[in-house]
């Protein structure tokens, strides 16, 4: 009798342990697919299929006839089946799937021998994981053959054909609780390098299983970093920017030529400068040179264009650099022309100081001077000021009683104008140049009159931009 009681207790304990170790997994039939279509479970686990597609009739039919949910039905229904033996059990939806695995079909992979008192083995879900260069790969580790007790395993990456610059190394520990056989993951980021190269590999290894678990196969795997740079393409050559701005006193301007979209073979491109309002020889030094990229070379090339720094007051000037005649199969990309704006910084910024030849107008922001040259004068001479108001002033050339010009600079920085205006009227026919400098930006506007020409009035409502 005592033995009988003990046996009964042991049997109940075993049943209880078995019940605790079994798990239920869910598969949803949604539209015309099963999710997940590929499910790995332990022997003794139960799979429950739930239909969420109420428009179409679905069912679950095992390829080998070992289970079926019955005739296809629409509306909400569930069907459960417990798998008592290991193996791959393929199934399909009779109206919408195929026993061959096409369409609405799935597989339940049952692993283990049904022992619920085994901690199981830890392994990668596959021997190879793929990722495009620059992406992040998720590596999955499975617990198979048992789920008894808490277990853990260490993982670490190491260089394969990929080096340390190609990915971010990772190491750590994955842990499972008792009865937990869900897959665990860790991520390995990779680095985009824009180099055309072959695919590279990173090794990942599982080690030091804890809690009585063993290492399953595969315990080592390879991450393949797929190179996404276009092989066999020489690429495109272009400037790095469509516009460059510099000060005349900078001495030079750096123009960057860039190679993108491929690095196959040696390629070159001709870089030439062209005058705009800036003149080669006077404002900058012409450049005409071939820029070469070697095979596999995607490094930016910098070409220096020398600038002439003179003491003459000049407005903003522009010249261009253009690319042409690409070789080695390369093509021109955009931008293939760069506009280089050179600001004259001879018109020094800083507070305007009124003197005998200088008006400070528009609240003192703008420095206004006039240089005139009468017939027979060997060089220009400065006009003399007669102050009027904060915005306007007079100039005389030959005698204070003989006023030549009234000039004003107005702040029209309000909608819809948003500009400083320069207006003047002159009662003269001698040659002159009016210089108006924005002392806050160094920008210069010049207005001229030719010798013998009756000066025309100027109404420049676009003279200077507002802050």
């Amino acid at each position: 009798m005592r033995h009988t009681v003990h046996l009964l207790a042991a049997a109940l304990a075993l049943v209880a342990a078995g019940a605790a170790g079994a798990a239920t997994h869910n598969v949803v039939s949604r539209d015309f697919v099963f999710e997940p279509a590929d499910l790995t479970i332990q022997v003794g686990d139960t799979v429950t299929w739930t239909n969420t597609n109420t428009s179409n009739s679905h069912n679950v039919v095992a390829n080998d006839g070992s289970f079926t949910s019955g005739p296809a039905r629409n509306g909400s229904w569930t069907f459960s089946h417990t798998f008592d033996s290991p193996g791959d059990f393929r199934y399909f939806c009779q109206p919408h799937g195929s026993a061959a695995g096409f369409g609405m079909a799935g597989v339940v992979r049952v692993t283990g021998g049904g022992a619920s008192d085994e901690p199981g083995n830890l392994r990668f879900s596959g021997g190879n994981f793929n990722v495009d260069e620059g992406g992040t790969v998720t590596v999955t580790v499975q617990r198979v053959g048992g789920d008894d007790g808490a277990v853990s395993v260490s993982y670490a990456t190491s260089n394969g054909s990929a080096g340390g610059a190609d990915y971010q190394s990772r190491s750590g520990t994955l842990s499972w609780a008792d009865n937990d056989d869900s897959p665990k993951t860790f991520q390995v980021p990779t680095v985009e390098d824009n180099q055309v190269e072959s695919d590279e590999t990173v090794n990942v290894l599982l080690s030091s299983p804890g809690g009585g678990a063993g290492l399953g196969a595969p315990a080592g795997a390879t991450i393949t970093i797929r190179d996404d740079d276009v092989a066999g393409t020489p690429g495109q050559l272009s400037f790095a920017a469509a516009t460059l701005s510099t000060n005349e006193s900078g001495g030079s301007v750096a123009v960057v030529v860039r190679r993108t979209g491929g690095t196959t073979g040696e390629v070159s491109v001709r870089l030439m400068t062209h005058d705009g309002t800036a003149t080669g020889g006077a404002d900058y030094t012409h450049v005409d040179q071939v820029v070469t990229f070697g095979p596999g070379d995607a490094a930016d090339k910098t070409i220096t264009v020398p600038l002439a720094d003179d003491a003459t007051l000049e407005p903003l000037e522009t010249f261009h650099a253009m690319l042409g005649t690409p070789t080695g199969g390369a093509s021109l990309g955009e931008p293939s022309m760069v506009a280089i704006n050179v600001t004259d910084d001879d018109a020094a910024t800083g507070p305007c100081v009124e003197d005998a030849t200088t008006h400070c107008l528009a609240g003192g922001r703008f420095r206004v001077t006039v240089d005139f040259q009468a017939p027979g004068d060997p060089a220009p001479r400065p006009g003399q000021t007669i102050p009027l108001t904060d915005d306007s002033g007079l100039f005389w050339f030959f005698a204070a009683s003989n006023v030549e010009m009234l000039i004003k600079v107005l702040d029209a920085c309000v909608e819809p104008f948003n500009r400083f205006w320069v207006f003047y009227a002159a009662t003269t026919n001698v040659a002159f140049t009016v210089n108006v400098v924005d002392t806050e930006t160094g920008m210069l506007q010049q207005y001229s009159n030719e010798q013998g020409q009756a000066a025309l009035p100027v109404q420049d409502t676009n003279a200077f931009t507002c802050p």
Partner: protein
Amino acid sequence: MSLDDRSQRPSRPGLTLLAAALLAAAFGLAPAAAAQEVPVLRDDEDLDFDRPEAWAMKYFAMVSMASGFGVPAAREPGAVDFAFEVGWIPSIEGEDARVGFRGTKQEDLDKAPLMARPRVTFGLPASFSLELGWVPPLEVFDAKPNLVTVALGRPLFQGRAWRAGARLHGMTGVIESDITCPNEVAAAGPDLDRNPFACEAPSEDEVDLTYYGVELTAERDAGGAWVPYAGLGISELDMEFQVDAFYNGLHDLSLLTASGSQWHGVAGLRWEGLERAAVGVEVFYSPLEVERVAGAGSETDELLNVRALVSYRVR
């Protein structure tokens, strides 16, 4: 909407079962297995216009659309033109043919490469013309169409070198074909590699195609034999696909319907070098929206085909 009755349509599997029953009887076996009835599936569904199944129906509706080949001519009342149209049907293969069951089953949509249609046009008063067309029910390439088209056209503008006109047109009819279970697939029998859905007989599917719409065309007539033209049209499509297939132990009699508006454009060149005859060649374009993967959003998978028309004025 479900498996609600039983079918015993005479078919190859039916004959096979009958033979099996006779054999079973001859050998003294119970005939129950041979006499089993086939469950019928009726999953009738009104499809979104961009479902892959609807895309396939739109494709065939638009490829069989009778375009005008230029501005409708102002014919004398009683004038009669005969014409013969040939249109190229671009093949639908690979992933494009994966339209069944919301894009999860590959269907055999690559049947006939060409479509031919005789047309006759009658001159009516007030510069109207009435055009009738018919794709007769001749079975070629495992497809039997029976499509009737009608159009009422009239020039609207007649300038020195430009003409413009409009056509109200429509089509109704059916295409019968073995789309769900192609003949060669069903013939593979239990070979799941070649017959993955266990088709038991060639299906007898029917596609009902109906549209009505308007087409506006303009053409330049500079006095020469060549007349270039271009046009735009919009149509209301009303389509049905009646499945009739035995597979996986089922008799699928589901009815899929889809309807919506679809526009198209044409551009072509007509040669009028002879007094009574003309030849036109045109490119037909229609942007067909489709959501290939559920939830992934619609994309345009357009129809672009070339058609030709030869016409002769009888009187």
